[in-house]
């Protein structure tokens, strides 16, 4: 490889600056005591963070978001793992269909799904609209592309049939072989997918706002409701949120590079 030209470095740094600019300004704004109609902020203070992290409504919304996301990811694990194993081990012909189906949550905008969801679950036998349950179930579908793709790639890589045959020869039943042999091999990929899906779900606004709204106020809905309050306060909120999902993404990437 030829030595990196200066222009390449400059372009990369320009890209980083462009992507970092809104985040950096928000950080500066959240730390500024006041920032009137000037270019530079005045004073430095953590008061906005102190105010935010003692705000009961914020903490409650944060907790609710955490709860819904963790519940959705647990459900996702419980449902996807057996399904994926069955497809890959017994019915590999279904792989094509699954690959197509798990893309649906990405291909169909949440606004479109919510039109049907609002009508189907507002009353009837499953009156879920307005409850956290509908978010858990919808977030399960949203997490599918992350979870399925990551796990499917890993399953292809570990050569499932050979692994299972070896375990069977050594006397393990299918369930035991799956739990003791296959699952440990998927661990890093699985954890990475979970963290990535988590940072995605934590930022979900459309379903949270349209299907549940203030009846079970999640972080994004709370964030939206605060749009008219002080810019410093919302900046502190945005930064806290970004650090949180940034951390989750970072852990996911570390796990990914370790499993590769």
């Amino acid at each position, binding site marked *: 490889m030829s030595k990196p030209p200066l222009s390449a470095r400059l372009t990369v740094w320009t890209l980083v600056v462009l992507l970092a600019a809104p985040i950096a300004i*928000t950080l500066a704004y959240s730390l500024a005591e006041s920032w009137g109609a000037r270019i530079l902020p005045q004073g430095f203070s953590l008061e906005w963070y102190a105010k935010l992290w003692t705000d009961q409504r914020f903490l409650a919304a944060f907790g609710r978001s955490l709860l819904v996301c963790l519940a959705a990811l647990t459900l996702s694990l419980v449902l996807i793992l057996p*399904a994926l194993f069955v497809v890959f*081990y017994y019915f590999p*012909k279904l792989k094509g269909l699954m690959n197509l189906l798990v893309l649906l949550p990405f291909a*169909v905008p949440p606004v479109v*799904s919510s*039109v049907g969801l609002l009508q189907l679950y507002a009353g009837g036998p499953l009156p879920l609209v307005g409850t956290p349950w509908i978010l858990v179930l919808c977030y399960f579908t949203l997490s599918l592309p992350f979870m399925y793709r990551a796990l499917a790639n890993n399953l292809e890589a570990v050569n499932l049939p050979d692994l299972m045959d070896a375990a069977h020869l050594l006397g393990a039943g299918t369930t035991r072989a799956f739990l003791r042999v296959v699952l440990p091999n998927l661990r890093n990929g699985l954890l990475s997918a979970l963290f990535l899906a988590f940072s995605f779900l934590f930022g979900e606004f459309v379903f949270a706002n349209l299907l549940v709204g203030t009846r079970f106020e999640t972080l994004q809905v709370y964030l939206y409701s605060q749009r008219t309050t002080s810019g410093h306060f919302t900046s502190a909120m945005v930064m806290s949120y970004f650090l949180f999902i940034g951390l989750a993404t970072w852990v996911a990437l570390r796990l990914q590079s370790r499993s590769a």
Partner: protein
Amino acid sequence: MTDLALTTDRPSHTAAPVNTGTLPAARPSPWRRRLPLLLLLPFGLVFALFQLAPIAWVAINAFQAGGDWSLAHFREILGSPWYHQSFTNSLDLAFWSSLAGLAIATLGTAALRRVPGRLQNAVVAFTTMSSNFSGVPLAFAFIVLLGMNGALTLLLQQLGLAEQFNLYSRGGLLVLYTYFQVPLAVLLLYPAFDALRDDWRDAAALLGAGPVRYWLRVALPVLSPALLGTFIILLANALGAYASTYALMTSNYNLVTIQIAGLVAGDIFLEPQLAAALSLLLMALLLLVTAVNQWLVARSRHV
């Protein structure tokens, strides 16, 4: 693939003991072989109820009016300048932000592939993080940066570069959309650059082609399927976007997604079937775009 050929007899390993002696391994009865399908059931049920059923509801109800099958909603949409505008606005934002995002990402990724590995990894990690920075928080960050009293707005005004940059306008939305398209495009394009071999650049240089010609005649044609595919995903991403526009403008910018949401959860009157018809048109648009992409990729010589 070899494992496909082996699959037919695989379940027998699990059902029959390995040392069956002289007898060939007994094949389990058909219903036994289908037993594992039961494990697919819970997954399939939840997926059907919360992903397929809503789409089916939309598909059916778009054609319903007053309890009968009818095209009334489509006629209403096609005859309404208001809904026309929502589609043109959505397409306009999606097209230009995808194009700008793709251009910036292609330049950035090309440069990224030429810098040392450590910097590459760090930038990819940062890009992944910023790809999750979207929706409401992103809109807030842009208000701080580019709003009426945003730091950058004031700076640009003092430098006399942009007297009236207005975040709450088409231009502002374009900047916002382009911002969230770039990280996605970089992450999608990054692996595609593996197809470019370093010696091609050297070979082109030996044959007398400068960087511009190398890019036009070698690199871009090789990358074209990846670029097209990425463009389509960006387009779909922008057409379906709702949260950031809503957070910035509430309902003051006429987009398809804003109209759909307003018809099912608005303040005035609700018309879910009209929303379904709009949704169906939006999905048809996405399908059309994907089909055109498939056709273009199939025609490209460099797959």
